[in-house]
């Protein structure tokens, strides 16, 4: 068992944002070409670079003690986590989306067909409204479902709205906000509570606060 505290971080744009966030707090992490594991320059932290969809699994099984993960993904998993706090980037809206100008009669009899990468979120939204729903699970390019006629509605994360506009889609309703959370595996939090708390404070506190503390 490694004594380094391990953090699972998502590939792609979220990693770029997180690594910039780390650098502002004096932690540099660089993954060598094609490497998926890296150690911070001070040798205290280990980072795993994983797909966003798999991140909760690595933390849930305790392979990583901490994870940087969107609440959109966390809401889709049944693993238990401690949510330590939201990071100041990557927030978005979870939305119900349909074709622009399309007349919809939700709850008018038959189940509404919805394509989504977030079946749990979509199911909860419609069930809370008492509307029967037929969920079609997709893993990407969800907007195509409406364009190609797979489903009249999609539930998906919207950051800028440009993709929707490009496909002549519009937001029908904002279901909720998503944010990037720092989460901990409960057992690892317990075992290494001091280290996890110190790191969480460092990562979650505004820069001004960290600066005040070090002066």
């Amino acid at each position, binding site marked *: *068992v490694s004594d380094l505290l391990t953090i699972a971080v998502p590939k792609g744009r979220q990693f770029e944002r997180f690594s910039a966030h780390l650098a502002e707090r004096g932690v540099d992490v660089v993954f060598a070409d094609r490497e998926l594991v890296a150690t911070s320059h001070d040798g205290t932290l280990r980072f795993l670079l994983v797909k966003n969809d798999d991140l*909760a*699994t690595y933390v*849930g*099984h*305790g*392979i990583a003690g901490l994870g940087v993960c969107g609440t959109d993904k966390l809401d889709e*998993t*049944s*693993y*238990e986590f*401690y*949510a330590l706090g939201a990071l100041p980037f990557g927030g978005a809206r979870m939305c119900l989306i349909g074709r622009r100008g399309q007349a919809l009669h939700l709850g008018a009899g038959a189940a509404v067909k919805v394509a989504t990468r977030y079946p749990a979120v979509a199911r909860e939204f419609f069930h809370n409204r008492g509307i029967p729903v037929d969920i079609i699970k997709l893993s990407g390019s969800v907007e195509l479902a409406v364009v190609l006629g797979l489903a009249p509605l999609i539930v998906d994360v919207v950051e800028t709205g440009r993709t929707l506009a490009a496909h002549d889609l519009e937001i029908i309703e904002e279901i909720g906000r998503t944010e990037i959370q720092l989460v901990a*595996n*409960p*057992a*690892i*939090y*317990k*075992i290494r*509570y001091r280290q996890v708390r110190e790191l969480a404070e460092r990562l979650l506190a505004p820069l001004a606060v960290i600066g005040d503390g070090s002066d």
Partner: protein
Amino acid sequence: MNQPQRKTRLQLPRGAESLLLEEAFVHRRVIATIADLFTAWGYMPIQTPVLDFFDGYRQLLDDDDARHTYRLVDREGELLMLRADVTLFMAKQIGLAIRSMDLPLRVCYFDAILRHQEGGDLSHSEFYQVGAELVGLAGVEADLESLALLNRLLEELRLPRAVIHLGSRALVDAYTGDESVRARLRKGILARDWQQVENELGTQVGARARELFAYVASGAEFLADAAQLAKGQPPTVAVDLERTAHIVATLLPMLPVDRLRVDLSEVGSRHYHTGLAFSVYLPGVGSAVAAGGRYDRLFAAFGDGAPAAGFSLFLRKVEGAMQDRERFLPPTERVRIPTDDFAAAYRHAEKLRAAGQVVIFS
């Protein structure tokens, strides 16, 4: 072979587990070692039924527990449940007969349980629980005995980095008498979800509760902090923290360094916990490997009441982490004896077996 046949012939049901050869051997040896330990402490085994009537347990299960229980209907139409928690089944077996028993009673068990697990961790619906329960003692001495025995078990299995996190359900009860609020509050605390705690108690009281339930520290630190922690808290909190401090102060000199911590978010995962509550965590294992505490009202659900305290350990979670695991391995040296004359070979083999050797006929 069509697809359904292939599936039923080649796979186990989702979540089921089988052990083969060396792994099964180690498992049995570990159980025998634990049984010897429990026997030396005066604990007698109890064998609980693999299934029982669901209705008798429903009031003792919260909705999540009930949802994770495997249920089936028997030929008479009765709803049955598979054993999902040995403590519950044991409580019924003992509760029904408690009037004729001499208390206190020390019992131990070694049984598989089945709980449905949602989502990712589908490989583990079947767990092997070993546990010890002390029935009929309400005092702190039963809490001490349970924790001391648990520590001995961790030593016996050579798990030096295991840590016991100690808390109390009574602290939740100090905040509210409303059963449904208690249940939601307990879940919020267990999840360290302080927003949920504030939702249940309001902002001001919720913030005070957070100060208490977020507390984690070493046993020695807790002894220094306990009086300060009680300030501004509901009146019974101080009494419960004093009890916890007594337990910690008594056990600390007996336990390895950093074995015992006080973690007030440990409020007991089961609906039926009452006072002391604790869990054991182990580096490299992503969830608690053991849990226990006090449950003084459980037996009354099945007959005459009796206070009780105990713990259970998820054996399969720790078997891979034991140091010196080789002491549980089967002997590798085997004497092979030809059986040209079977009667002579048998007599020779028995002599060698009596001397402790493994002998196989070849």
